[in-house]
């Protein structure tokens, strides 16, 4: 299965908008939303699906049995995450606990025990021929990288026969993004023509290249700052990165999204531009064969 991942570094540049359009254009049989912190792709996939939900267990969390605890404080001294509060009794702050198990290791009486903890929810949308995998991380949870890996595995397992998958990624460059990059064939970066957008684009390209992944770049809302769009094009040229197109700012795009549609479901200028970008990306995949 060939996998295309859509990233941006900066948030709000149009990853999900582009991903939804690509899914439609490719008539994709397998796709996933790896932005487990703030998933949105499901809002504009208007297809009939059976939804299977299951709890996602991240790393365990410690608990202290107050009947056994002798209040020696060793757990608190050794915890590197400030996850043990003391106010007459020792108590785990479950938001700070990363489940390392050091408290369990140092407790002389066995009062600290690691217990499994739900850290989010995995959702698998399925119908006759299509699989859509997504998840939602529990509020304030860590281990989003592990959940991203689960989302991708769930998709691959359910869609064994699909030959092409489209994955919507998350903003940033940290653990969920790195987990989403692992194993994909190409990253399409949706850049924004602004000083911030360019800085963030350079950092996400660096990150993708650290993991030896092929990168292509397109610019969204390119006409909001033509000069910065030109800088992005020349940056790509200088660094030998495929530049695959420009999408104009389009008020109709917002309308389509707010109707729960993708921008290729209606007739609009941004939709036309995305079609061209899609063709170029498919061409890059063909050439790589």
């Amino acid at each position, binding site marked *: 299965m060939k996998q295309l991942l859509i990233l*941006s*570094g*900066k*948030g*709000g*540049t149009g990853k*999900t908008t582009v991903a939804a359009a690509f899914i439609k254009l490719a008539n994709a049989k397998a796709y996933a939303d790896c932005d487990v*912190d*703030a998933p*949105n792709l499901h*809002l*504009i996939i208007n297809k009939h699906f059976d939804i299977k939900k299951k709890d996602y267990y991240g*790393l*365990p969390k410690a608990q202290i049995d107050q009947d056994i605890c002798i209040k020696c404080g060793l757990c608190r001294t*050794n915890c*590197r*995450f400030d996850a043990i509060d003391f106010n007459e009794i020792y108590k785990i702050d479950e*938001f700070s606990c*990363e*489940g*390392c*198990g*050091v408290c369990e*290791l*140092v407790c002389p009486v066995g009062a600290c025990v*690691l217990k499994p903890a739900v850290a989010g929810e995995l959702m698998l949308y399925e119908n006759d021929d299509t699989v859509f995998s997504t998840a939602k*991380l529990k*509020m*304030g*949870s*860590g281990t*989003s990288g592990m959940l991203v890996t689960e989302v991708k595995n769930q998709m691959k397992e359910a869609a064994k026969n699909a030959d092409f998958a489209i994955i919507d990624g*998350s*903003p*940033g*460059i*940290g*653990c969920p*993004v*790195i987990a989403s990059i692992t194993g994909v064939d190409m990253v399409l970066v949706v850049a*924004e023509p*602004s*000083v*911030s*957008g360019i*800085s*963030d684009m350079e*950092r996400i390209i*660096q*990150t993708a290249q*650290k993991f030896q992944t092929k990168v292509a770049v397109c610019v969204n809302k390119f006409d*909001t*700052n033509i000069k*910065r769009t030109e800088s992005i094009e020349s940056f790509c040229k200088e660094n030998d990165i495929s530049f695959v197109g420009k999408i104009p700012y389009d*008020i109709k795009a*917002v*309308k389509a*999204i*707010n109707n*729960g549609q993708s921008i290729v479901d209606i007739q609009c200028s941004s939709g036309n531009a995305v079609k061209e970008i899609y063709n170029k990306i498919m061409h890059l995949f063909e050439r790589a064969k």
Partner: protein
Amino acid sequence: MNIAVLSGKGGTGKTLMSVNLASVAQRAIYIDCDVEEPNGHLYFKPQEVKCEEVTIKIPLVDTDLCNGCRKCVDFCNFNALAYIGDRLIIFEEICHSCGGCVLLCPQKAITEKEKVIGKIECGVSGNVDVVTGILNTGEASGVPIIKKLLKKQAKKDEIAFIDCPPGSACIVMESIMDADYCILVAEPTIFGSHNLQMVYELVRLFDKPHGVILNKCTEAYNPSEEFCIKNKINILGKIPFDNELGEINSNGLILARENEKYQKIFTSLLRHVIKEANNETTIDS
């Protein structure tokens, strides 16, 4: 007073709001906690920048002392250690620096070294102290940088604006932990309102007083505004969608410093925010 600016969704205008609100304050600190993609410094272009490296502790094995018992490998819940061939391998990128392997090793073969994961830059831009956390590319977690950043908080009579990362995961939670008031920034799409709902739940979970700024407003239907009205969330202000604003901002300039019209908008917005924050904190205490 510490004011956190967050949004759930990326690109709604967190940095725009925090940079401009800080610019119109008497004295302010701007703290950029979006350490994966920090952008505030691109606007402030701070002077007299002092740089401080941020390190974490990573295990270091003395292969002469290691006898291959694998106790550390079994212990590590992050799978950051493996015994392959006849030596212990450490995967630095996934190590959480818990120190468990050091405590556990019966041979005392494991010590720790400092590993640089990023830096904090402090500088000045007019009335604003600019503090920026920057995570190195390829590193998994910026939480240690954020923890260090948040030690630089507002003095009395100063306002700190904490520019948060997108999302609602641990990294955002860390950023709002010490905030006295939270500003949620939302855009008028169903993505915007869906993610607004998430951060709204987050600030409620931590019992943080909060209000919403609606950004990029047009005449058209605004799902985020509808969400605020339905849930009786205080709307602090509305910033219209505006090409001129967009262009100034996309060129990395500070609206409130470039143009009197925007200076007035943000001054009155700041006044409103401070009034709300003071109200809320008095009710609390």
